[in-house]
């Protein structure tokens, strides 16, 4: 639900006077920036296996991160303990990067300007008690087993979390965000003539759990997981070598995340360690390709009302008609590069430093009919679903691994092929895109991005595209 109201005022879990004294003692007068980040998060998870919901768990995380920034240097300290002594010690440790000097004048903490909230500020598990969640998982298990006798094992997991975030900036400005996140995952193992295969499907976002438990969405995920597992039973060996590849819409957008998204993050470009560092304004993709990072889509898994520095999120155009136009920026890297923060400063939790990160990264639709794109393949791979991916932002080499793919000959889909890794170079691959479908889709809400040991939820999206040449890591030569 999109509202124009800020979340209801939430009381700070720490006394205002304490925070004011931590802030004042934290920040030397010549600091460029600094803030306090106070978090209280709860999460709950139920998991079914072997027909039983026997893994039920919950966790509560609370703590404060204190940060001081001076030039290219940053001091961070994290504590789980909310007593005065521990908080003051955290402030002192974070200040260690700055030379001694006078502190800023005492500031008073005051509410920041309300921002547009992209999700409801309520715990997403409210209204769906543990028993209802358990019943749902049992129904999904029964459904999976009823769909095909070859279904051997069913794993179903429903999880939800609610994070209450308070950011107190150097000037005392207090920004609050309350972030719901839910996720449902189904995975099955099937067996035929002693051969086993697996398939999985998931979905979620920043909305109430009741959305996932009501209606047909959960059942669709079960059908999808079973379909994929059975399909893979018949998968042939994948060809090995360089060939044209057509990517289906939605989650295959992981291509963008790996091939260009990470390479456009501000820290790598300020430091010159990204292959894209000197390419602003240059052609990095074929004409017709526009790629955006958009953190403002209501209720998406990768969306945030404000980033973890309190900057409102944005729709940032990274590539416009094939030309590199934008980087993803947190405040520190933006300041050092003389650019604007784009609302991409994110941290996994109070116990992690802020890094420039993606939100929802996708390519805008083109004009081609998806069927024509598949039909254009003389001999190649049509890949519709993927597992994970990874990139080396310095050499630009990236990989992503198929979980549903087909061998295509003479424009016709021939048979499914086994999971294979596709490898390319980020600064080259989008220049080899020759067709762009009119069928942009966003992923179902399953992406998690890892960087510097931190995981954050993200989204991706893609229309069907044709890449003229990509290396396919099969076993068939």
């Amino acid at each position, binding site marked *: 639900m999109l509202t124009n109201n800020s979340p209801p005022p939430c009381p700070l879990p720490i006394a205002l006077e304490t925070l004011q004294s931590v802030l004042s003692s934290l920040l030397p007068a010549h600091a460029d920036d600094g803030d306090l980040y106070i978090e209280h998060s709860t999460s709950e*998870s139920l998991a079914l*296996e*072997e027909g*039983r919901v*026997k*893994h039920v*768990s*919950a*966790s*509560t995380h*609370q*703590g404060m991160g204190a940060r001081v920034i001076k030039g*290219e*240097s*940053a001091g*961070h*300290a*994290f504590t*789980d*303990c909310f*007593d005065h002594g*521990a908080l003051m010690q955290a402030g002192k440790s*974070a200040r*260690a990067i700055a030379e001694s000097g006078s502190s800023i004048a005492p500031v008073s903490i005051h509410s920041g300007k309300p921002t547009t909230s992209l999700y409801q500020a309520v715990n997403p598990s409210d209204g769906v008690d543990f*028993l209802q969640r*358990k019943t749902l998982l049992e129904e999904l298990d029964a459904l999976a087993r009823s769909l095909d006798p070859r279904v051997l094992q069913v794993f179903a997991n429903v999880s939800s979390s609610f994070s209450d975030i308070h950011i107190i900036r150097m000037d005392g400005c207090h920004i609050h965000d309350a972030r719901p996140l839910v996720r449902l995952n189904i995975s099955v*193992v099937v*067996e035929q003539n002693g051969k*086993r295969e*697996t398939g999985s499907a998931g979905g979620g976002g920043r909305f109430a759990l009741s959305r996932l438990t009501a209606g047909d969405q959960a059942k669709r995920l079960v059908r999808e997981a079973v379909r994929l597992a059975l399909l893979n039973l018949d998968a042939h060996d*994948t060809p*090995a*070598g*360089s060939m044209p590849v057509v990517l289906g819409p939605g989650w295959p957008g992981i291509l963008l995340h790996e091939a260009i998204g990470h390479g456009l993050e501000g820290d790598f470009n300020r*430091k010159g*360690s990204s*292959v894209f560092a*000197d390419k602003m304004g240059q052609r990095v993709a074929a004409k017709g390709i526009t790629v955006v990072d958009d953190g403002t889509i209501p209720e998406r898994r990768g969306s945030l009302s404000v980033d973890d520095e309190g900057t409102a999120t944005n729709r940032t155009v990274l590539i416009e008609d094939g030309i590199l136009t934008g980087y993803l920026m947190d405040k520190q890297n933006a300041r050092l590069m003389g650019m604007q923060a784009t609302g991409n400063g994110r941290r996994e939790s109070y*116990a992690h430093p802020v890094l420039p990160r993606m939100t929802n990264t996708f390519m805008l639709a083109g004009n081609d009919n998806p069927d024509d794109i598949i039909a254009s393949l003389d001999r190649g791979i049509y890949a519709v679903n993927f*597992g994970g*991916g990874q990139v*080396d932002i*310095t*050499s630009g*080499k*990236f*990989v*992503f*691994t198929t979980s549903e793919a087909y061998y295509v000959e003479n424009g016709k889909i021939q048979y499914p092929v*086994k*999971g*294979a*890794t596709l*490898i390319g170079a980020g600064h080259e691959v989008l220049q080899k895109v020759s067709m762009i479908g009119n069928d942009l889709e966003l992923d179902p809400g399953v992406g998690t991005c890892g960087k510097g040991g931190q995981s954050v939820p993200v989204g991706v999206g893609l229309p069907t595209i044709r890449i003229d040449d990509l*290396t*396919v*890591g*099969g*076993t068939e*030569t």
Partner: protein
Amino acid sequence: MSLTINSIADQSSQLIEAAKQYGAIHVDALAVCDTGDSISIRNGQVESVEREDAQGIGLRAFVESPAGGLAFATASSSDVSESGLKKLAKQVVAMARISEPDPDAVPPVGANHPGMDELKAWQAKHNRSDAGWNLELAKAAALECEQLARDYSSLISNSEGADACFGNSSVAYASSDGFFAEYAKASASLSVSVIAGTGEHMQRDYAWHRAFHADDLHSPQTIAEEAASRATARLNPGSMESGESMIIFEPRTATSLLGHLVGAINGRSVLQQRSFLADSLNQSIFPDFINIEDHPDHPDGLGNRLFDGEGTRCTLNNIISDGKLNTFLADRYVAKRLGQAETGSASRGLTGDIGIGSSNLIWQPGNSTQADMISSIGHGVLITELIGFGVNAVTGDYSRGAGGFLINDGKISHPVQGITIAGNLKDMFANIELIGSDLTWFGSSAVPSIAISGMTIAGE
């Protein structure tokens, strides 16, 4: 209230008592308090200083189901105030009541706990509460390491910085059968990452080492030279033709094979039929010169432990001897279900359910140097880098991005990049031709170079 090693015993027993009052029959708890410091240096300047002060308690409670049998749930919190602990105890019992009973559930009592004397002897032997660094010493090491790496060659064009980290951790485990044990761990690490070349021809590489004590770390010079020489050696890579090839995994990449093995012999994955080795117990899955052990008390291993996440005493597990798979890794529940001996492999963090993991994994080395291996295979690829996650745990199908060096006429020729290597782990394990004498430790695992035949390369 905060958690200190002195208060852990009290807080754990308070928590166990509270859970029992709410109706739990059996309870166990794990408490952790960590402090850590790290400093990053880039281009000779301090890039960041970090200080961590973390604490938390995880609780597992078993209740008797009205229908019979035991059901359980787990919960954790970093709020260790009296009211926070009470809330945690109440929450976990309420959750256990909705959890489904399992006829094979094993309560955390009656485990093969180590005795008091063993505990004391262990604590005396593994007295690790200080990593031997303060921020100034760590800063000096990082500065030196980064400077040496940047100065290594004129081809080094940029730096991603050097990190020096140190910290200690206090861990306590308590269960409602009266077992209580605590121990302290400390470690220090030093790493550096540099870039060679410019523009579209940049190559990055790194080196890293971690030890119980800063005095045991590789020198800043050793780490700097490893990172910088690797980055420069990667410059100007080519591709190669697709086809079948002999492959040598150097220790840095061979360690991932050890990871795939441990994932596949995880007893829970075996029970769930999600492992390509589920039906391979007592079979020869490697050639007969392969021996792999899970060693809980090794002088070089950072994974040493006296007891596992359920308080079970850890013993040496000969996972693979003469190529044969001897055991799956099991906690008490999995051991009961699989009808095998416990292996002391319960691994437990504060959050989530108990998992299964190894202590120190050691792949016993062979007699050939890596150079001998290269010369004896003649043609193939030395794999120094793997990226991506293309491994299917159920089937063993394997396809990953890779980089390394072409081997021609028994010698290293030029660097290759942008290739994939593919096969099936079962075949890869069976097709190991040679293992090196270059046993290398990576924290809690140690592995030599490994040569495998019959894998497929995809390149041009």
